[in-house]
């Protein structure tokens, strides 16, 4: 029994090594000297780390500009989504109304639309209203998937708050608005934070719409900036590329680790219970 467990543990550690290796390799490469990077025999751990690649990456043209664009797009998208989605989630979690099923279908169905299938119509319509190559156009397209996602996730968090609390307050003579402000909103704090962070990650990572809608290098997001990041002409500057990748991933990884537990089962939690 003991031996068998040791065997499983060995396999578990091997799987861990294989799965995490790409992340390790990214960080390790980012800190290596150039000759260690291009050498045919890899250096596993850089003993004399350098931050030259990071300096190189952040001084590339448009890095800061594109980080700023990403932040603007992300913040506006998340702010609009959370406010509007919260209202709709309250309706879903707390009210029975005719058309509710249709609305649920809308919220779920939209999330299943393949993004590539929406490139052409969104591009053509946004071009018509001069929203191509504008951050506002990207915000609009991001709302198409962040909004339904936020409605669904917030609804899940709302269901976790017992209705009895609100009902008691109503009996005690609170108004609907009072219940909302004094009871629902504070209790929903963690849910709102988790949903915002997840929306932040989805938006920050988005590639295809940003690639199609923003042609101007000064208007791109950091994800698109990274996708165009290759060295001059023949040789790719792997060190700088990995440093840039690390920098792009850091905010996402940090935020993701913070909320993963809360969101992880959002997609399937209902299925397990139902």
């Amino acid at each position, binding site marked *: 029994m003991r031996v068998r467990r040791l065997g499983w543990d060995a396999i578990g550690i091997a799987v861990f090594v294989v799965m995490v290796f790409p992340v390790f390799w990214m960080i390790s490469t980012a800190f290596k000297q150039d000759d260690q990077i291009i050498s045919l025999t890899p250096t596993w751990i850089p003993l004399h780390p350098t931050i030259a690649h990071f300096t190189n990456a952040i001084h590339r043209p448009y890095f800061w500009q594109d980080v700023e664009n990403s932040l603007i797009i992300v913040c506006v998208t998340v702010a609009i989504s959370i406010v509007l989605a919260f209202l709709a989630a309250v309706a879903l979690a707390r009210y029975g109304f005719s058309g509710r099923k249709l609305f649920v279908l809308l919220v779920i169905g939209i999330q299943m639309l393949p993004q590539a*299938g929406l490139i052409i119509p969104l591009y053509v319509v946004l071009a018509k209203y001069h929203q191509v190559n504008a951050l506002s156009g990207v915000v609009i397209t991001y709302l198409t998937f962040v909004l339904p996602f936020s409605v669904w996730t917030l609804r899940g968090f709302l269901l976790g708050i017992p209705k009895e609390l609100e009902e008691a307050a109503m009996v005690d003579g609170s108004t609907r608005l009072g219940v909302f402000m004094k009871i629902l909103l504070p209790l929903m704090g963690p849910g709102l934070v988790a949903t915002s962070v997840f929306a932040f990650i989805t938006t920050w990572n988005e590639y295809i719409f940003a690639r199609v809608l923003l042609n101007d290098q000064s208007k791109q997001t950091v994800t698109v900036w990274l996708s165009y990041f290759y060295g001059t002409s023949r040789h790719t500057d792997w060190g700088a590329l990995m440093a840039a*990748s690390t920098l792009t991933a850091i905010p996402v990884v940090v935020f993701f680790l913070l909320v993963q537990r809360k969101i992880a089962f959002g997609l399937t939690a209902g299925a397990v219970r139902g």
Partner: protein
Amino acid sequence: METSRRRRRAWGRAGRGSVPYLLIAPVVAVIAVILGYPLYYLVRISLQQYGLFELIQHKGIAIGLRNYHSVLHDQVFWHTLVRTVVFTAANVSLTMVIGMLLALLLTVVSAPVRVLLSSGLVLVWSMPVVVAVQVWYWMTNYENGVLNYVLTKLGIGDYSQHDWYGTPFSQLSMVTLLIVWGALPFVVITLYAGLAQVPGDLLEAAAVDGAAPWRAFRDITVPLLKPILLILTSLSIIWDFGVFTQPYLLIGQSKITSGNYLMSIYLFEEGYFKTDYGRGAAISLLMLVIVAVLSVVYVRRMVRIGVSE
């Protein structure tokens, strides 16, 4: 259950009237404008000659079903469809089988290894797709990629200077590796959570009765996990069928040809890149219909959950 339902009905009565509609109105309005209108436009321009000139004029020329005719008589469309179906099947089966094995592995390792492995999985899960593509490209490049070095050192063969992006099959296999690697954490962690809900005494009873572990897995664990497996499989099918970023960036635009198109890329190249938006719209609609059919299982289940709670 019954009382809560009654209570909800009471709430519903109290809130009868406009409140829920006012609450959903902003979302419905925004979706109607930003999605409903473009979808209407999609149908419209799929019936039009709509290229760069028409884009500037904001006015297409009606040509009936000619775009659809052209797409459906295009060999490339059918080849791409078949390739995408095979690609999706390969990705989904690899993801689900390996995912299940790793979830089972998590149940038999000791606690420290379990924590280590699940933290590793969460770390992988958090990697942005574009970042993962760049790292993958670096690891698999033919000049000094670490993959070739490791394969050669392990004695699997001489892979020094082996170009993984030489043939469509090899290119798409690399994309599959990347996608499966990225998809595993979500699948493993969700399945592991599901496995934790399988009552241990059932499995013990089966073991006492002399059932082989494989039979206990097949006859107890799998049926209990069926709802989760169903949802994970259909989500994976939908995601992998429509995948764009990984193949587009990993294969690299200069190496994208009709020989390695996947559906999303086909539509991107034919519609957007060649600025034939009308034809692109026809492909988009066909693709949306296919994905809608693929989503039926998932959407029905989720809607049932959404309505019942």
